[in-house]
């Protein structure tokens, strides 16, 4: 199947422009645009995309765009789809950064952000709860959660170091369990 890189670019620009909140919010839109309307990928492909996006680094939106672009139109397709999904945010934030800097000194804006900051903490807490519920419930996961928290929050270790340690522990545990059974 050969899909024109330009139409990949346009479709993913549309997806990037209409997804608020990023990440998983983008999956239904990709499903409608890339699977149902264009038929570039099947529903099963899309499940694969989500599974792969979850276990590779980087934002899910980028992973999905690169994957679908690569699959339908090779490396040029991957480049165009990824550019497409990034460009709307890039343009909007660039323009908005001028406005943010211009208005941030105004009293009502400062009051608004004073309220917003506490609200954002609540949103992060909500996201954390979703993530927590998606984890397995066993001693291993609870121990890793607690260890990651303490190592970074109390002992001020680098997050990247903790991420690498946890990935290695996960692999070691999977391998030793395999040996036992």
């Amino acid at each position, binding site marked *: 199947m050969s899909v024109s890189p330009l139409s990949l670019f346009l479709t993913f620009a549309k997806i990037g422009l209409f997804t608020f909140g990023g990440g998983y919010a983008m999956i239904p839109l990709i499903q409608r645009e890339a699977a149902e309307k264009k038929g570039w990928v099947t529903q099963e492909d899309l499940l694969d995309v989500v599974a*792969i996006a979850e276990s590779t680094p980087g934002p899910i939106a*980028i992973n999905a765009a690169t994957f679908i672009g690569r699959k339908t139109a090779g490396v040029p397709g991957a480049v165009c789809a990824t550019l497409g999904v990034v460009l709307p945010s890039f343009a909007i934030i660039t323009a908005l950064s001028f406005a943010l800097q211009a208005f941030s000194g105004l009293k009502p804006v400062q009051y608004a952000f004073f309220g917003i*900051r506490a*609200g954002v903490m609540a949103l992060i807490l909500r996201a954390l709860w979703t993530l927590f519920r998606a984890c397995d419930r066993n001693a291993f996961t609870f121990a890793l959660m607690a260890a990651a928290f303490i190592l970074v929050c109390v002992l001020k270790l*680098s997050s990247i170091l903790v*991420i690498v340690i946890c990935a290695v522990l996960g*692999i070691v*545990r999977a391998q030793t369990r395999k040996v036992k059974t």
Partner: protein
Amino acid sequence: MIFFELFLTFFRIGAFTFGGGYAMLPLVQEEVLGHGWMAAEDIVDFIAVSESTPGPFAVNMATYVGMVTAGFGGAACATLGVVLPSFLVILIVAKFYERFRKSELVSGAMSGLRPCVAGLIAAALVSLGRSVLFPAGFLFDARFFVSAGVFILIALLAFRKVHPILLILLSAAIGIAAGYLLGL
């Protein structure tokens, strides 16, 4: 050189973020504060902006930090940096994704990464929460009680699945009202 520093920093953030949404917050917070590019309050403010504008959090954040520190060139470098790791990894994985999907190494690593990311976000929440609730030491003044009240109210609504953009607007309205009424 600032452009290269931005590119490299966001490349690192992109390469070590697993999972969507706030998964990259701990790394962004650590790197951006570490470099002194933005204050903790500015990061929190921008999370609200990012929630209310289209596009992935990672891309929005990279563009904004780049723009604030080094203008348009900085925004381009930071965004390229955050995108490139996923782009390259997917190009490689797409070739043999059947094997990747069934790999025990990958599923093992993920079983460690998922709880790790939850712990890291909790740590980021505590450290950002401290600078939001107590910007000038442990003062229990009017600002603290307004912030705590907003936090509890918005948390209750968020758990009832009210849309984030509505919640941000509501917190802004309360902030403005409390600001003028209490003369904060």
